């Protein structure tokens, strides 16, 4: 490992190319189904996907629509004129002998993604976003003298999102990757299912001690945020070690071995191919008129940056807000942001609600527990009624969580007050009853009582805890503390 002192002499420069699969019903240029997750190999293949003689590509309009939405997600507009080109190379999973992509005039030019790196706001500029069709999948069974090709993925619509080299740390790159994920999900452009390769990253990394960029390497096909981060950490270290050892960094394409947590050489620039790009004469240019662009702009949903702005008064930190933003798109039909937003008029409640969502419901839904309560109106009522009980000192915050957890899981349509009563969760605010417990606790914990009397106020928390325990969570903790002090003559 390079020492921090050596590391500090180098500037790291990172650019990322990200491929996201558009969530269309059919492929980019054919009517074959686009969702190959459960399909048998080579069952979602049309004549065009197979490269049949005479078969012509026909552009999927929905793919253009989603690409236009992506433009707005990046804070820009789609280009009103763009066209497809052919990129030629031979490989068995590329039936036509060329990939249909964009080069000179892509659908999106410019735009930006704003990220947060350790509390610092940074802007990553987008160079371009191009539409293209994916290749099929080649499988090379180990120990066999043949390879297999599955063309189900051939012709799948992709967006290739090319950033400028505006990132300078693994943390920034990871933040960018995660923000892209959120943007593409919120704009409803892609399912971004990383496991199924819906979103893949190619990272370009270079290091330099001068103003000039160093020689870069490109590590391809990373399919997790962690792999993006680890690849960059590994590459930065490797490149600096190489330069410090008097060697040169070789411009090359590398891969990531997740088991070994290392990158490895795939191919060097010397045998780089000449793709012989050419405008595709089978596809007329994509021309989007003003009205079309305006319609797409008007239909755009609220994006993550706007949500952060709207929630900014609640005193949540970045990680908490991001938990809400991420959870919002995890379960269909379960919304958090809208629920909070409806209650922004009552800041105190909105804060409590946000905290419950972050600390109770979201962890529950992310666990293996089945949550029966899905109805939005019932959920909203549950939270409000529980909050009112807490505000009226009838429910401790601990028991409030219990009530919420139990009613979310069971889905029972019960009033929280009635439920808490029945379950014995209602907070004890009867002085006499609590005093009895306090005396018991003080008698059982003489050392702690002595410490508190001696001015060690930390120990009072422990005593309150014991009171809560003995009262099975029902005692009003504020009252308990008052009574402890009183008993100890403070």
């Amino acid at each position: 490992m390079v020492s921090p002192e050596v590391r500090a002499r180098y500037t790291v420069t990172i650019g990322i190319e990200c491929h996201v699969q558009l969530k269309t019903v059919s492929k980019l240029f054919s009517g074959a189904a686009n969702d190959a997750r459960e399909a048998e190999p080579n069952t979602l293949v049309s004549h065009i996907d197979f490269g049949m003689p005479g078969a012509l590509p026909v552009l999927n309009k929905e793919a253009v629509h989603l690409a236009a939405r992506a433009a707005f997600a990046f804070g820009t507009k789609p280009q009103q004129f763009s066209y497809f080109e052919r990129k030629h190379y031979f490989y068995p999973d590329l039936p036509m002998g060329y990939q249909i992509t964009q080069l000179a005039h892509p659908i999106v030019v410019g735009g930006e993604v704003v990220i947060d790196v350790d509390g610092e706001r940074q802007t990553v500029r987008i160079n371009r976003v191009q539409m293209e069709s994916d290749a099929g999948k080649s499988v090379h069974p180990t120990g066999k003298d043949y390879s297999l090709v599955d063309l189900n993925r051939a012709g799948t619509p992709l967006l290739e999102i090319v950033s400028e080299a505006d990132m300078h740390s693994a943390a920034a790159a990871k933040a960018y990757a995660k923000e892209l994920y959120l943007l593409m999900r919120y704009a409803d452009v892609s399912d971004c299912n990383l496991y199924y390769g819906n979103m893949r990253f190619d990272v370009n990394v270079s290091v330099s001690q001068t103003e000039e960029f160093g020689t870069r390497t490109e590590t391809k096909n990373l399919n997790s945020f962690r792999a993006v981060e680890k690849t960059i950490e590994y590459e930065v270290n490797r490149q600096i070690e190489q330069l410090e050892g008097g060697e040169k960094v070789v411009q090359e394409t590398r891969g990531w071995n997740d088991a070994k947590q290392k990158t490895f050489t795939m191919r060097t620039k010397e045998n780089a191919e000449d793709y012989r790009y050419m405008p595709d004469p089978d596809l007329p240019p994509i021309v989007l008129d003003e009205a079309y662009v305006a319609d797409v702009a008007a239909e755009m949903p609220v994006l993550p940056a706007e949500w952060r702005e709207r929630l900014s008064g609640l005193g949540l930190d970045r990680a908490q807000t991001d938990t809400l933003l991420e959870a919002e798109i995890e379960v269909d039909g379960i919304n958090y942001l809208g629920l909070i937003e409806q209650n922004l008029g009552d800041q105190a409640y909105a804060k409590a609600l946000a905290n419950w969502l972050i600390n109770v419901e979201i962890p529950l839904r992310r666990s293996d527990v089945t949550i029966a309560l899905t109805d939005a109106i019932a959920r909203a009522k549950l939270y409000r009624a529980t909050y009112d009980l807490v505000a009226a000192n009838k429910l401790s915050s601990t028991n409030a969580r219990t009530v919420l957890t139990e009613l979310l899981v069971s889905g029972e349509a019960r009033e929280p007050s009635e439920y808490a009563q029945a379950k014995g969760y209602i907070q004890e605010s009867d002085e006499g009853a609590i005093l009895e417990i306090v005396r018991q606790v003080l008698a059982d914990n003489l050392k702690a009582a002595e410490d508190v009397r001696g001015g060690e106020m930390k120990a009072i928390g422990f005593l309150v805890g014991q009171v809560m325990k003995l009262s099975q969570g029902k005692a009003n903790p504020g009252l308990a503390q008052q009574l402890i002090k009183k008993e100890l003559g403070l």
Partner: protein
Amino acid sequence: MSQWLPIDDIVEQVQAGKLRAVDLVEQALQTIEATAEFDAVIATTADRARQRAAEIDARVDRGETVGSLAGVPFIAKDNFLTFGSETTAASNILKGFEAPYQATAIERLEEAGAICVAKANLDAFAHGSSTENSDFMTTKNPHDPTKVPGGSSGGSAAAVVLDMAPFALGTDTGGSIRLPASFCGAVGYKPTYGLVSRSGVVAMASSTDVVGPLTRTVADSAIVLDVLAGVDPLDSTTIERDDDCYQVSTASLKGMRIGIIKEYMDESLSDEIRQPITAAIEKMRQAGAIIEEVSLPSLPLALACYYIICPAEVSSNLSRYDGQRYGFSDTEANDLFSSYAGSRSKGFGKEAKRRIMIGTYVLSSGYYDAYYKKAQTVRTKLIKEYEAAFKDFDLLVGPTAPTPAFAIGSHTADPLQMYLTDIMTVAANLAGIPAISIPAGSSDGLPVGLQLMAPQRADRTLLAAAAKTEEILR
């Protein structure tokens, strides 16, 4: 005299039950067999044709209306994907290929009741002007079997002139319908680019490929176009057809402004062509046309421009023939690279390889701007010159080819000389405008074609004027 009635008469009689589709198919198949020595046909689709003919007759017997081409036999160039036989594009690499779907053009003709009886020979992948580049055989000119029929739709043109069927389908990328029509004495019509779907046609150069008919008369071409024309959801480059029928009555030439293309009639033009073409144009003048000379200064660049753009697209379109999924595959190969190299070097003929190499060269990094991009600039200039010319003229006129049919083997050693055969036809393809070649006399017993061109989408004007010209030249 042809054994076939005009197409609309055939249709009328089939619909009336006076002619039987099964008999028409037998008549076609017998003629194909009787003229086999001309090598116009690669394969017949006899079984399927007989079956379809019987179905059509049965529908007529049930009193159903069969369609605007009911029972009419036709021959398709073998680069149209069809059922009933292999589709080879006259290439070894596609030998044995059974199409899993049919070209839109074939589907539309069948829908109208036409019956495909055979697949015609061509230069492999439509690369050529003589059918000598067919990987299988050279078609002989019906007027003189020592001469070429022209190409690349040479089999289709010869088939029509040999009376095998009332019409044939061809494709015209740089003159491949008009040139063989001129050499064989048929009508060869290239519609406006995009008016007929290319779906299911083995692609040559996508930006100039056009499907069209070869017929004995202009009227027959118009009937066929009327069935073929219009937007196809399978081909994004197709355009809206006219609402009106393309089958038009002959228009008067009186007052029509027709420009003689100066660059095609300069001193280098041989007398054997100049004489009949000049005579034909004179008859048009006598019929009332206003004839003037017009110059399109970029025309001399058209051929060079075409032979950059076309091979570029060819090299790309032929990439899919890689021996991995269908067609010829080199079984001696022992790794992926040698499978590609072996399948393609053994499967492609000389001309396909030449065009792949030229195309690969002009698209390669460092040469793209100097060749491909420059050629596209010239193409744009040429289109503008045509647009300017069509402000002053309704039609342009000139010869279809610089010579009559040449002797088999005479051009094969010199590809440049072969390419020069297309010098008068390629410009219409680059500009996407409709053009037609009609018989206009002969020279030493070999037919000479007169070429008429019109602005984009003015196909009806072109067909009407061509029909009138055909009438006055008869």
